[in-house]
């Protein structure tokens, strides 16, 4: 799969974080920017963080142009990734639906559908009877907040979470990238405004550039370099049911009746919950959040009341004030951050890695990620995606 080398003394680039985004960054740095002397350091096991813990929903139907560009760049990469990496991503474009439950939702979503269309995305508005056709088991009228319509993106879908981490890792490894697991980044060393390297559990490793992609732990690491990031780390939970024969063939998300669900190829219902309202690094959230989610599932799909939760787990997501990520340089030369993905980073994995690699290689952002800078929290040019992030923060 990949080698487990000892860290060298010095690298051109150290990528901190062996999740999909980090491994992808290394892959694109090697493939598109000719940088080969790269290490990816991971404190646990590859893909063991949010990559392996999320509900794998992929879509690009975000409201603002900046986001739509970024996430659609990612979908386009997803569409060819199995072939490119010669590893099956199981990217299943079965469509993603966002349900509207009140007049406000309808207005908000119709606006999003229209904006998406102008941005060249395939989002469309569905009336309730069209939803019912796609998901016959959905309870659309006999519930507290009836289903009044949906924004639907057919190109959206789900993919296999481990596959993207492993796929990137294998191909990066083949190009000479050192993938080092069980190697915890403890602090980032800088001197006179320039990055020097990373102190790790396997010793100090020197580097010209350090790219931090450590999701929930990013702000902790940034602090060691004296950089403050506008991030809060929150628990985010998910769960799966026992497997049953196919019953739901698209991804359905709802904000007002808060739950999102898809059915995996194995037959499990994969269900995403909301974030907890407090900072935590425990990878565990409150049971009340699970209850909130499951009762929404039972409300929307009464027959699922007869099913059972098989496993639940939590991850640590780093949330930005405007629910958009940061893919940016910072005041320390040679130090880059790709973080703040909140509840929806998985879908962006290849796109984020691709533009981040560009940013690291050229010390300049790609035009797609230029708006996702840190300055926006000073000048006020936020990319407020609270509506489209579809998770009630």
């Amino acid at each position, binding site marked *: *799969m990949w080698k487990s080398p000892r860290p060298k003394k010095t690298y051109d680039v150290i990528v901190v974080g062996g999740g999909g985004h980090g491994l992808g960054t290394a892959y694109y740095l090697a493939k598109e920017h000719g940088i080969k002397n790269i290490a990816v350091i991971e404190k646990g096991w*590859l893909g063991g963080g949010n990559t*392996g813990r999320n509900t794998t929903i992929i879509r690009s139907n975000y409201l603002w142009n900046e986001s739509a*560009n970024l996430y659609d760049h990612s979908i386009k990469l997803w569409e060819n990734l*199995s*072939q490119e990496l010669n*590893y*099956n991503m199981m990217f*299943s474009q079965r469509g993603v639906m966002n349900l509207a439950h*009140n007049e406000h939702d309808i207005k*908000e979503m*119709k*606006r*999003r*559908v*229209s*904006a998406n*269309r*102008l941005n*060249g995305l395939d989002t469309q508005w569905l009336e309730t009877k069209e939803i019912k056709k796609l998901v016959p*088991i959905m309870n659309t009228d006999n519930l*507290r*907040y009836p289903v009044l319509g949906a924004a639907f993106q057919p190109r959206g879908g789900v993919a*296999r979470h*481990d*596959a993207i981490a492993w796929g990137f890792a294998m191909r990066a490894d083949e190009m000479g990238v050192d993938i080092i*697991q069980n190697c915890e980044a403890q602090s980032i060393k800088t001197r006179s405004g320039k990055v020097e390297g990373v102190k790790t559990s396997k010793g100090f490793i020197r580097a010209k550039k350090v790219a931090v992609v450590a999701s929930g732990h990013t702000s902790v690491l940034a602090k060691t370099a004296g950089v403050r990031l506008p991030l809060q780390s929150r628990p985010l939970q998910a769960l799966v*049911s*026992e*497997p*049953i*024969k196919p*019953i739901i063939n698209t991804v359905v998300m709802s904000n007002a*009746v808060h739950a999102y669900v898809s059915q995996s*190829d194995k*037959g499990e219902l994969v269900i995403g919950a909301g974030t907890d309202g407090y900072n935590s690094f425990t990878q565990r959230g*409150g*049971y009340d959040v*699970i*209850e909130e989610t*499951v*009762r929404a*599932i*039972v*409300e929307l799909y*009464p*027959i*699922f*009341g*007869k*099913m*059972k*939760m*098989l*496993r639940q*787990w939590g991850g640590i997501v780093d949330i930005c*004030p405007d629910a958009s990520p940061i893919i940016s340089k910072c005041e320390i030369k040679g130090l880059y951050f790709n973080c703040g993905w909140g509840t929806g980073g998985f879908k962006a994995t290849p796109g984020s890695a691709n533009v981040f690699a560009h940013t690291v290689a050229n010390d300049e952002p790609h035009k797609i990620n230029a708006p996702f800078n840190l300055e926006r929290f000073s*000048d006020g040019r*936020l990319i*407020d995606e609270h509506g489209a992030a579809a998770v009630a923060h």
Partner: protein
Amino acid sequence: MSALDNKKSSYIKKNKKVSFTFDGKKYYGYKGDTIASALLRNNVRLIARSFKYHRPRGIYTCGIEEPNAIVQILNEHNEPNARATVKQIYEGMKVDSQNRWPSLNLDIGSINNLLSPMFSAGFYYKTFMGPKGFWKKIYEPIIRRTAGLGKPPKEFRSKSIHQNHNVDIVIVGAGLSGLIAARKLIDTEYDVLLLEQDSFLGGVLKNSNKVEQINNQEVNKWIKETERLIKISTNIKILKNSLVTSYNFTNHLIALEDKFAGKAIDTSKSELTLHKIRTTHTILANGHIERFISFRNNDLPGVMLASSFEKYIHRYGVIPETNPVIFTNNSTTVTLLKSLVDLGHKPVAYVDARDKNKIGKKLLTYLKKNNIPFYFNAEIEGCDGNKKVETISIRKNKNKIIKVKSSMLCVSGGINPDIHLFTQSKGLVKWDDKLITFKPDVPFQNTITIGSVSGNYNYEKTHDEINNKLSFLKPKNIEMKIKINDTNNFNIKELWETRHEKKSNWSKSFIDLHNDVTTKDLKQAVVEGFDRIEHLKRFTTNSMGTDQGKISSINSLGIVSKILKKEISEVGTTTYRPPYAPLSFSAIAGRNTYEFYDPQRKTPIHNWHINNKAIFEDVGQWKRPWYFKEHDSETMHQAVQRESKQTRQTAGILDGSTLGKIEIKGKDALEFMNLMYTNPFTKMKPMTSRYALMLGEDGMIKDDGIVCKFNDKHFIATTTSGGAPKVLADMEEYLQTEWPHLQVYVNSITEQFTTFNISGPKSRDIMSKVFTEVDFSNENFPFMTFKVFNYKGTEARIMRASFTGELGYEIYITPNHGLELWKRIFHHGNVFDLVPYGTETMHLLRAEKGYVVIGQETDGTVTPIDLNFNWMIGKKKKDFIGKRSLTRSDTAREDRKQLVGIVPLDKSEFIEEGQHVVERERLPNPIKTPVEYLGHVSSSYHSPNLNHCIAMAMIKGGNKLMGKKLFISSSYGTKNIAVEVVSPVFIDPENKRLTS
């Protein structure tokens, strides 16, 4: 060979016969039987087909850990994936096997078994890829259809309930150690909850004959006595049929109680109770789980865990086979052997992997005495048979294979403390070389483990252990003498799998029965470079089935550690994730779903609205009239046009009770209000009111409302209906945390005032009739003033204000007078053609006047300047919330999106809300490259008073685009609608109607 009843067992009611069907065929069992024990009684061995290869599977265990015997309950809404080893039968129950087609005996899917090289570890990742598009169209649909276990449930409406508990001590498990602990806590100061997953107490005492006597009593008598003592105690409550599934932070536990265990479900009652327990201490006495050993075809129906076999004999009174083969690597199988011999049967062979000197003289003598064929230092190579075990191959002296015949093979690979709950609580475990397993080490919460879950396998010493561990609770001293039938020296040899002799595609040695993972898959994955147990788990799906690998996960660590040449403790375990066993969604939801999903809030006028054909809209939790149907065939459009027109012609009234209302009072109230709102309140005259804006610190508009000033120390503010709780919370937050020096109190009075908005040219006439004592003339009661006066013994407040642009009043009255006053207004209003209107008309009328709605024109990215609300900003104020943000470079930009009015050039056209403003007349379909747009249409209505569409939009540099021709996209075509940018005030720009 066939099953026999154990006449000595008395736990099953053999006088109560129960009939049920399995795959359509009728069988009989006894009351208390599980599906599994009843089927074993009927010699039914083939129960299911496996997940991937569709191999025939039988009953492997006797409990929650079952990986194979998973069935569908047809008469319970087709409930999928029920465990046959747990679910009790009742008269008329209908059970089907799963994952087979066309029948269990002849399953087409079993061809997968022969194609198995394709389905080896990680096959998903490596195959089924190209050519492009094949995955989506061909491979994935096939995989999806063959995967999955049960069929989906059928129509169902859940009725489970929740029960909360607050206690001092929870004891999980009422086996030997749990019962001892409970007995010691009888009549202490602690509130204790004793939870037992079975429908009876006793655990191991009833499942085996490992303990012979307690205090010279038959164990059954001791259990009965203990149960009686607990029941008459004042402080201990027992919950049976209650399985603890989750151990959350701060000693919060979830347990699921089956209210209909062994009974047909009464659908009018709650079938499950989910117990939510908050405790101070948790005593885990939840025992252990036996593990298996991997050998060739270790999945054939007829292979069963040894202690499960024992449990069927003692607990269920069925001897599944009188002459099985026993295969063990440890000392716990002695009691099974003795049980069989005591009943007059004997195994075909007793195969022990241990050396002779480890086995112990006592057992050797016993075997000899009873003339039992006996093999030490031996192992089972595999077994064969047609959909069941027929021949068993014993490997003796390393290479010699002996074949024996039996239909059952009892296996014990050792026992694991059931650490699932302990690790959920985040306790640390450690590896025990002697027990060859993980056991609890350091608890993270207030957790105490006792009995076999703590790694204490010696029943004689259980009481000493409990005395020791519970001493800090100062429990009662009781006399305990435990006499065992077992050996008190647990002894085990490490053995995870045996060598595979035969090579055929059908021969497999499984490590995960549920997910059809073989030991070969596991090894292959390691060879491919997956050397981390979490990767192996994900790559092979090992231990990810519904049983979470309860009987096999340690075995896989054993196998992997051997390949990696590491200690098992170095390999580590995968994370045990809650719940302990699959947990019903219906139970988790409880009653907080369907009609109770979210509270409905109703105004005091609600029933009047219903009687007057109101159609309601959900606004937060509130039910608000959206529009009123004059007659049943009236459409929404017709109703809204009628309501809007009539309001401007005569008068209309809206139930505005949902508006948030906050009373603000204190010495520093004025200063506080000046800080909270953008508006200046200092120069505002008493008894006047003002439209006011609230921002976030980011400078974006958060809420709006009307502020009434009684004097500098007393204000009442209204908020939007949805924003009320947040505004109050923000005010409290600033007062308590930021400005504690301000002497101000705020109270919510939303529910205290039923509120009506009456507007239209006739509203003054109507008001004068209703409140005869008030002078409503313009001079005495000008725009944006308010009055408080007596109304029928209570206080009414009337404010001259309007959200429609017409002459209007807001009436605030205590709720007990609300409906009466509303009716009274109609009584007087009817002659003036007063019309009730709903929120849609409200929105239309305000749009005609150019008033904004928070959440419609604003979306969290709009500043007051963007809405041309500069006049509402107290620029001379030193500070207010959000002030500084308004001068940041981006918020100060001149080309920000600004509010404008939009009208179609062709007055017959209609603009859709949410569509975008562009400079092009046509758009391609589909759009390939992004099209620049200026902004979006935030509101759009057909104005009945102007008789054409009016719209509001937020567009880039809107203020400078007045009079410009632009286009609006549409949802139905590529041709856009030509429009003109105009002022958003469409009616009465001079405010004549408002102020006259």
